[in-house]
C-alpha cells in the first residue's frame, strides 16, 4: 500500500510495459492459443452434431469434418410421427418445464427470502435439510414413487412427471435465490420504510423490481435442469409417448428395426439444443453469476 503511494506514476507505468520487451510475445500467443484450445474443446462436438444434422442419411458414416451432402430431410424425419413422437415431446418438455419452474419458484422464493433476511431458530438445520434433499440420488425416490403412482394411476401422466421433479427444482431455487437475496442492497428497503412505505409497499415497489433479474435467472436455470432431466422421466412416463419429454423421446429415437438413424437423431438433438444455446448466449452473464452463486449442481 505505502509503496504505491510513494511511487510516482512513471516507474509504475514502466513496470507494466516491462513484460512485452522480452522479444517474442509469448504472453499474447499463449493467450490466443489457450482461447483456441478451449473453443475447440467446447465447440468441436457441437459443430460435428450440426453438420451431421444437415448431412444426407446415406452418407451418415462419411467421417469428413466439413459440411457435405447437405439436406434438410433429417429435420423433416425428426417430426415424422410414424416411428417417433419427437414434435409432441417438445410441447411436453415446455409444459413440464414450465409447471416445475413455476411451482419451484413460487414456493422457494419465500423460503429464500427468510433464509437471506430473517434470523430464526433452526435456520441452518433447515438449510442443511434442503441441501440433503437435493443430494438424494434420483433412484432413492424413484422406486417408491413408481409404486405409488402405479397405485394412483399417475404413471404416464403429466402430474406424474411434474411432481417428482420439484424435488430437484425446489432446493435449486432456494439456494440460488438465497444467495442472490443475500447480495441485494436491502438498505433501499429500509430507506423506503423510513420514507413511510408499508412493508408491503417497500417489497412491491422497491425490492421486487430489484429482484426481478435474479428471479428470471433462477427460473432459467431451473427450466434448463428440468429440460435436461432424464432418469425420473424415462421411468415414470411408463411408455406413454404423449407425455414423454424431449430427452426421453430422443433416447428412444428410432428409424425402425436394425437401422441406426445417426443423422436424424442429430437433427432432433439439434432442435432440442438450439433454444438452449440461444438462451445461454443471451443470458450468459446472468447464468454464470447464478451458477457460481448457487454453487450447486450442473
Amino acid at each position: 500500500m505505502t509503496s504505491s503511494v510513494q511511487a510516482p506514476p512513471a516507474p509504475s507505468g514502466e513496470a507494466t510495459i516491462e513484460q512485452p520487451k522480452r522479444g517474442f510475445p509469448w504472453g499474447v500467443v499463449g493467450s490466443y492459443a489457450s482461447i483456441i484450445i478451449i473453443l475447440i474443446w467446447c465447440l468441436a462436438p457441437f459443430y460435428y452434431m450440426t453438420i451431421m444434422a444437415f448431412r444426407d442419411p446415406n452418407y451418415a458414416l462419411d467421417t469428413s469434418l466439413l459440411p457435405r451432402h447437405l439436406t434438410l430431410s433429417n429435420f423433416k424425419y425428426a417430426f415424422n410421427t410414424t416411428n417417433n413422437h419427437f414434435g409432441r415431446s417438445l410441447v411436453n418438455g415446455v409444459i413440464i418445464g414450465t409447471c416445475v419452474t413455476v411451482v419451484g419458484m413460487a414456493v422457494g422464493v419465500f423460503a429464500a427470502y427468510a433464509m437471506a433476511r430473517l434470523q430464526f431458530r433452526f435456520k441452518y438445520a433447515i438449510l442443511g435439510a434442503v441441501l440433503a434433499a437435493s443430494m438424494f440420488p434420483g433412484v432413492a425416490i424413484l422406486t417408491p414413487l413408481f409404486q405409488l403412482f402405479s397405485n394412483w394411476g399417475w404413471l404416464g401422466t403429466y402430474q406424474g412427471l411434474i411432481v417428482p421433479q420439484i424435488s430437484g427444482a425446489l432446493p435449486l431455487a432456494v439456494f440460488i435465490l438465497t444467495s442472490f437475496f443475500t447480495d441485494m442492497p436491502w438498505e433501499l428497503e429500509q430507506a423506503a420504510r423510513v420514507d413511510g412505505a408499508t412493508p408491503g409497499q417497500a417489497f412491491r415497489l422497491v425490492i421486487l423490481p430489484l429482484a426481478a433479474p435474479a428471479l428470471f435467472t433462477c427460473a432459467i436455470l431451473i427450466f434448463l435442469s428440468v429440460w435436461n432431466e432424464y432418469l425420473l422421466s424415462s421411468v415414470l412416463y411408463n411408455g406413454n409417448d404423449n407425455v414423454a419429454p424431449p430427452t426421453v423421446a430422443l433416447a428412444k429415437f428410432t428409424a425402425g428395426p436394425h437401422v441406426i438413424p445417426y443423422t436424424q437423431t442429430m437433427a432432433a438433438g439439434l432442435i432440442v439444443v438450439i433454444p438452449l444455446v440461444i438462451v445461454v448466449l443471451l443470458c450468459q452473464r446472468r447464468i454464470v453469476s447464478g451458477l457460481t452463486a448457487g454453487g450447486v449442481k450442473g
Partner: protein
Amino acid sequence: MSHMQSVPGGVEQEALAEEKELVEGYRPEKGRKKIATGEGRLAFFLVTPTVLLLALIVGYPVVKAIISSFQKDRGLDTATGFFNQGGGFAGFANYKTWLLQQCPAPGGGTVKCPPGTLASEFWASVGFTLGVTIVAVALETVIGMIMALMMHKAFKGRGIVRAAILIPWAIPTAVSAKLWQVIYAPGGVADSILHHNIIWSEKWPARIAIVITDTWKTTPFMALLILAGLQGIPDELYESAKVDGASAWQRFWRITLPLVKPALAVALIFRSLDTLRMYDLPAILTGGANGTSTLSILVVKQIQSGPNSASALSTITFIFIFACAFVLVKALGASIMPRPAAKGR
C-alpha cells in the same frame, strides 16, 4: 513470504467484520429481541411450504423405500412352492442379496447369486461407479483448473470463451450421449481421427468412452466455478509476490491454489455426487452393457422385477453416496453449506 501468507486471512476477516457491521447496523440494539420473535413467526410461515413439499416429495418416498426394503417381493415362494403376493417382513434378505450375494435358492435357503442375475452385477457396478467418479472428477478438476487459469489470463475474447464454455453445459446429457454415440460409431469420426478401429462397445473402450463424454460435458462447468474463485483473488497478492521474487510456479502453489481451494472443493464435491448417481449417460450411450452399469442403472433395471429389492438397492446407493460425500467433505475440509450471512462465500 511469511507476511504474504498472513494477508489472505486478514483480508477475508476484515471483509467479514465489515459485513457483520453492515448487517447489524440495520436495527437498533434496543428492540432487537422483540423483532427477532416476530421474525421467527414470519420465517416459519415463509419456510413451511418448502419444508412440507420436500418432506412430501423427498422425505416420504425415501422413508417408504427404507420400509419396503425390509419386505418380501412378490414371486414364487421357494419354501412352499406357492406364488406369494409379496409383503411380509423379510429382514435383511434384500440387502443380503445385494451386499452378500445371497440369492434365494430353490427349496429355501440361499445360494451365491448366479451370473446373469442383476444381483451378481452389484459389486462390479459399485466398482465401476466409484472408478468412473474418481477418474472423471480428477480429470475434470485438473483440466478445469487449467482452463480456468487460461481464461483468467486471457485478456481478449473472454466473452466468447465464456459463451462457448456454457454450450457443453447446456446440452442435455441425453443429447450429448446421442452425439457421442455418433462420434464413437463403428467407422465413425473417433476412429478416423485416432486411425484405429476401436470396438467402443467392448468393456474398457466403453468405460473410457463414458469418462471422455462426461469429462467433455462437465469440465467447462468446473472451469467456470474455479474461475469465479480465481477472480476473487486480489491482484495485489500476485504483485507483491512478484516483488518478493516468487516464481510463477511458486505463485501458483502458494497463492492461487490455497485461495481457490474453497471454490475448488465445493465444485469437486458436487461433481462427485453427480457422477456417483450418474444414469443418463451410460444408460443411453451403452445401455449399461459390458461392465458399464452404474448403481442407478441397476436400480432402474430392478424396479420392474422386484420393487422391494430395488428399494434395498436404492437405499444402499444413497447411503453409499452420502458416505462418499461425508468422506470428501471431511478430507477437503470444505463447507458445502451455503452461508447466507456471509454472502454465500
